[in-house]
């Protein structure tokens, strides 16, 4: 049963992907702090590219989602319910924003810029994966309140 205007997904898929992201970010931090800054940056750049893909193509077409569908999901019972693809896709956008800052800081040679950005992105990915924390539930609303997103459809008179 597909709903093309609001695609539905297995909610465990994005949490699986967030878990992979969290581990990769820890590896990136470890490499960067151990002096292997180029290797740390390469891993970090791969995570960033993942967020680019997830933000633009949507969470359903994310590579981790494909891995989940092919290898993990067949081993699990069917999900209790499905969820909208929109919230996890928004979370990809948040991840992209944070990791892009890390990339810029690294290229600008700001010391510890990348590990700090990676640590922030790790906390978000970890909370989402392990505790089911919904990034969109707070951040999107704060952006709406700041008038950055979802501008009022009726102009002020």
């Amino acid at each position, binding site marked *: 049963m597909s709903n093309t205007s609001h695609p539905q997904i297995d909610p465990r898929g994005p949490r699986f992907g967030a878990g992979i992201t969290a581990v990769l970010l820890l590896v990136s931090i*470890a490499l960067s*702090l151990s002096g292997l800054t180029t290797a740390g940056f390469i891993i970090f750049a791969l995570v960033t590219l993942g967020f680019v893909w997830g933000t633009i193509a949507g969470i359903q077409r994310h590579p981790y989602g494909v891995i989940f569908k092919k290898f993990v999901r067949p081993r699990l019972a069917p999900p209790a319910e499905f969820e909208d693809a*929109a*919230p996890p896709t928004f979370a990809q956008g948040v991840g992209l924003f944070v990791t892009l800052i890390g990339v810029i800081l690294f290229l600008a040679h700001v010391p510890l810029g990348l590990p700090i950005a990676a640590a922030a992105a790790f906390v978000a990915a970890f909370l989402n994966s392990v505790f089911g*924390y919904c990034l969109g539930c707070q951040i*999107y*609303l704060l952006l709406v309140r700041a008038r950055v997103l979802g501008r*009022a459809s009726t102009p002020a008179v």
Partner: protein
Amino acid sequence: MNPFVVTGLLIALVAFATALGFVYRSGNGRIRGADGRTIIRASDIPGIQLLGARATLLQFSTEVCAPCKPTRTLLGAIADESVDVQHIDVDLTHLPSVASRFNILQTPTTFILDGEGVVRARIGGAPRRADVREALDRILTLEPA
């Protein structure tokens, strides 16, 4: 950097994130009593015609809020159990002024209103059935059908 220091930092980072997770989990969905002074009228929120005659379960959602759909289902079911109790779901995406006015910091946020529109309780995050039922019963016993 010394590998032991690096390992220690990573462990500290994971521990910090875990602590945040438990803080989040313990506060999420907790029902809080309101000061009893905030009154909401249907005209305060664009698109709302009428509030419930005896009580209203007023939910605020956005489209990127994963727990909002199950909350909508739950609150709708609870409202159907009683006469003159309404469940209303407001999409805050294009209503930043409403979000600011009622100091809404996350979605879903649920206000439980009595028949006069007084906010009696607020719940940030996915509400628990027992909490909503209890708060609602307290309101309904003071306002018989």
